[in-house]
């Protein structure tokens, strides 16, 4: 498996091998699924929507509903105006969502379809809404698609009425529904009234009911999105994923924002909890204090097994930064830290974390790919690989212990339901990392060294 990856690293400027990112529309689709009774709509060829739905289904193990304009040869020449108009009519007739969230594709962007005017021209049933965003696949990555779709909703819907609603907006970043649940739990414990936007909990982790629901109970409601303009503050989690929607809301509705890392690990969770505490003027309740204490206790108990272990971390920028922070807290050494998303901010943030912990020998890189990471590892291996399912082949080829985290995880279950964020999420991650490292020690040690008590 992948034995052919050459050890010698060569400079590539044109060829991408084994990407660590995908295209914008799938991110836009995921964001739109986090809106209640919303049908995500892909304005492009029918293949796009099929791939994106499949991709999301493979990660979440849930159906992912979205419709398509089904471009034809004619549409690619004359524009997709009539396709989107027919599509919107059909979607409202057949699937009856409250809102359709249109995102573009490389095709509709390249031929220059003007969604603003198409949407103005179309007839939309009374009480229903159509919003859109531009998600050219040749810019950024799926992370851009996610925040661009958020911006689309804010552009169309968020309003400042002048009457504050007393709520705090929480932008969760590109995380799993399990994470969103945990963030909401923490905000609830801190007694902060909030709107989480978007919110895929209760949608992409819906329970078995014996019915197929086109629209689940979860998702940010349209009224809540409108109300974003009346929120007192935005807690924008994920410095790369959430900054643009936060800036847009500030510009449009004068809602100030606080940008912070995804709350993965102790320090980043502390920062989130402190921010909530400042808003509600509440002390941190014992329930959270206790959980934090347990987490520190676990790190203390186990530190000899994680200390100085080298790790390669890859995936989406904010997730990777969070995972890097947690690994550093565990005393590990992040040796290679990469994302495929082309955002230079990533390298600065990840580098600053490593510097803070005095790590000297590290490589951080945005716009990287997994072929490159594999080559680095071939030259100088690590003790642990931490990232998406696409690390599987490297792990097998180089016989490196592997922990899955981030998006996508295509070959395991339960990951999307359980959190990585918060003190509880960190415990789950720490358990996975320790188990993996310690299983490896047991596997590799000589019989005489095998210990029942560790």
């Amino acid at each position, binding site marked *: 498996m*992948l034995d*052919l990856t*050459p050890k010698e690293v*060569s400079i*590539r*400027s*044109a*060829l*991408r*091998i*084994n*990407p660590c*990112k*995908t*295209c914008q*529309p*799938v991110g836009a689709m995921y964001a739109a699924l986090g809106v209640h009774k919303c049908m995500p709509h892909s304005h*492009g*060829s*029918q*293949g*796009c929507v*099929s*791939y*994106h739905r499949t991709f999301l*289904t*493979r990660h979440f*193990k*849930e*159906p992912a509903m979205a*419709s*398509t*304009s*089904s*471009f034809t040869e004619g549409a*690619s020449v004359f524009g997709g105006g009539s396709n*989107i108009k*027919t*599509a*919107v*009519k*059909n979607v409202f*007739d*057949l*699937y009856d969502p409250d809102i359709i969230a249109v995102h573009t594709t*490389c*095709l509709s962007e*390249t031929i220059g379809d003007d969604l603003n005017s198409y949407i103005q021209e179309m007839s939309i049933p009374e009480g229903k809404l159509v919003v859109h965003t531009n998600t*050219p696949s*040749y*810019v950024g*990555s799926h992370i851009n698609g996610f925040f661009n779709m958020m911006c689309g909703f804010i552009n169309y819907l968020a309003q400042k009425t002048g009457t504050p609603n007393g709520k705090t907006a929480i932008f969760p970043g590109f995380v799993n529904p399990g994470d969103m649940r945990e963030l909401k739990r923490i905000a609830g414990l801190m007694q902060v009234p909030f709107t989480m936007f978007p919110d895929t909990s209760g949608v992409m982790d*819906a329970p*078995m009911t*014996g*019915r*197929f*629901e*086109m629209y689940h109970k979860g998702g940010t409601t349209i009224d809540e999105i409108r109300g974003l303009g009346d929120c007192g503050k935005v807690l924008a989690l994920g410095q790369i994923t959430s900054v643009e929607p936060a800036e847009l809301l500030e510009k449009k509705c004068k809602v100030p924002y606080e940008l912070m890392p995804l709350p993965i690990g102790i320090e980043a969770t502390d920062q989130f909890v402190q921010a909530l505490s400042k808003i509600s003027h509440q002390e941190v309740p014992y329930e959270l204090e206790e959980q934090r204490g347990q987490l520190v206790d676990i790190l203390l108990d186990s530190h000899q097994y994680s200390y100085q272990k080298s790790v390669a971390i890859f995936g989406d920028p904010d997730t990777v930064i969070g995972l890097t922070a947690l690994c550093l807290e565990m005393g590990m050494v992040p040796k290679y830290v990469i994302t495929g998303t082309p955002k230079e901010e990533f390298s600065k943030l990840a580098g600053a974390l490593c510097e803070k912990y005095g790590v000297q020998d590290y490589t951080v890189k945005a716009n990287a790919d997994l072929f490159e990471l594999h080559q680095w590892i071939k030259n100088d291996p690590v003790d642990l690989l931490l990232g998406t399912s*696409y690390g599987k082949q490297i792990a097998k080829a180089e016989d490196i212990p592997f922990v899955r985290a981030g998006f996508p995880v295509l070959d395991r279950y339960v990951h999307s339901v359980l959190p990585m964020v918060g003190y509880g999420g960190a415990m789950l991650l720490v358990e996975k990392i320790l188990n993996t490292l310690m299983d490896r020690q047991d596997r590799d040690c000589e019989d005489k060294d095998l210990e029942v008590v560790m």
Partner: protein
Amino acid sequence: MSGSVRILEERKTSILDKAMCCNGNGKEIGCEKQSVSGAVSQRACVYCGARVVLNPITDAYHIVHGPIGCASYTWDIRGSLSSGAEIYRNSYSTDLRESDIIFGGEKKLAAAIDELVEKENPKLIFVYATCIVGVIGDDIEAVCRLAEEKYGIRVIPVKAPGFSGTKSLGYKIACNAIMRLIAPNRELPKGKGVNILGDFNLAGEMWIIKSYLERIGIPVVSTVTGDASFESLMRMPSAQLNIVQCAGSSTYLANQLEEQMGIPYIKVSFFGVEDTTSSLVRIAQALGDQQALSKALAFTAEESEKAKAFLKTYLPKFEGKKAAVYVGGGFKAISLIRQFREMGIETVVVGTQTGQKEDYEIIEQLVSDDTVILDDANPAELEEFMLEKGADILVGGVKERPLAYKLGIAFCDHNHERKHALAGFEGIRNFTREVNLSLNSPVWEFCR
């Protein structure tokens, strides 16, 4: 038309409900059309069709020319196994960026090929043009031709913009790419043996079919494209006969091979006792090989008996169960209906993504009067008809799995996420076990 199912006007010609007819245009089912705008279609695109046919060629470098998505969604997802090279399990693309869209992507593509040839030693490269490549005016024919001249290797353009038709068109484009590849060998002298077309060696199924043929004394010249290599494909013109397993993707190739290289073909299927047996017998007959024929008869008689004995132990578990089938091609749907019948399971809903008129005619004859037949169904239709007809198990692909589970319906993947070989006599056992495992899992007790 059943009252509870909401169906788009345009979709009504694509559904055949024999009891309550909504076949709007008279007698035939509407198929081989593009999806309706606004439908939550389960279908993929032209590029996808081309990619799935060519992807299993194990030592080919597949460069996807376009933005990153089309490369990342098709990276190592098909479960086609290899006995040799693993090159096809990497993802290569030009990852086009905004400046490439403005100034054109030809230079980047040429540079990508250079970078590849410099470091690796490719014999065969496929270059896939996705949606925007034609729109921005890249001449990938020219880039590929120049690369062939420069390096003396095969660099074959696969022009498959997603919007240009259905997945079936993609199959055809892939078949043309194969024809172009083997064209230099068109005069190869014929020798004994067959090509297996339209099997992608999912879970090692090609190896099963190959072993059966070897057992009855029929050499396999080339496999298309499961476990194929550049060298093995180049032998293709020397075969006496083509046997076509996945008719949807490869009948066109078989026709081309017949017209251009004089190789006749027969359609076969290795799903179920009935189809596996008749396929082996028909191959021997088509070759006029008496020895192979008697071996085939003996082999299939012995194996059928074993398979039937095996099935018998499961029959009580399947009693009264009903199946829904939603697969890609029409030929597979036909096999599955027969195979379920062997298992004592009635098929009550049948759908395909790319079935053709002839397929639907056969399906109509095979099923009972109140079976629903759908072309390019969307999830809402699948749901309503499965519930209405009381299906206990759905056979489908990745997007249908969670839909079935949410409805409390068992599921078996008969697409590229199949975990066990489903072809041949081994496949009968695996399929039976999988169907049983899902139908009779204790988890359903908690769902009701």
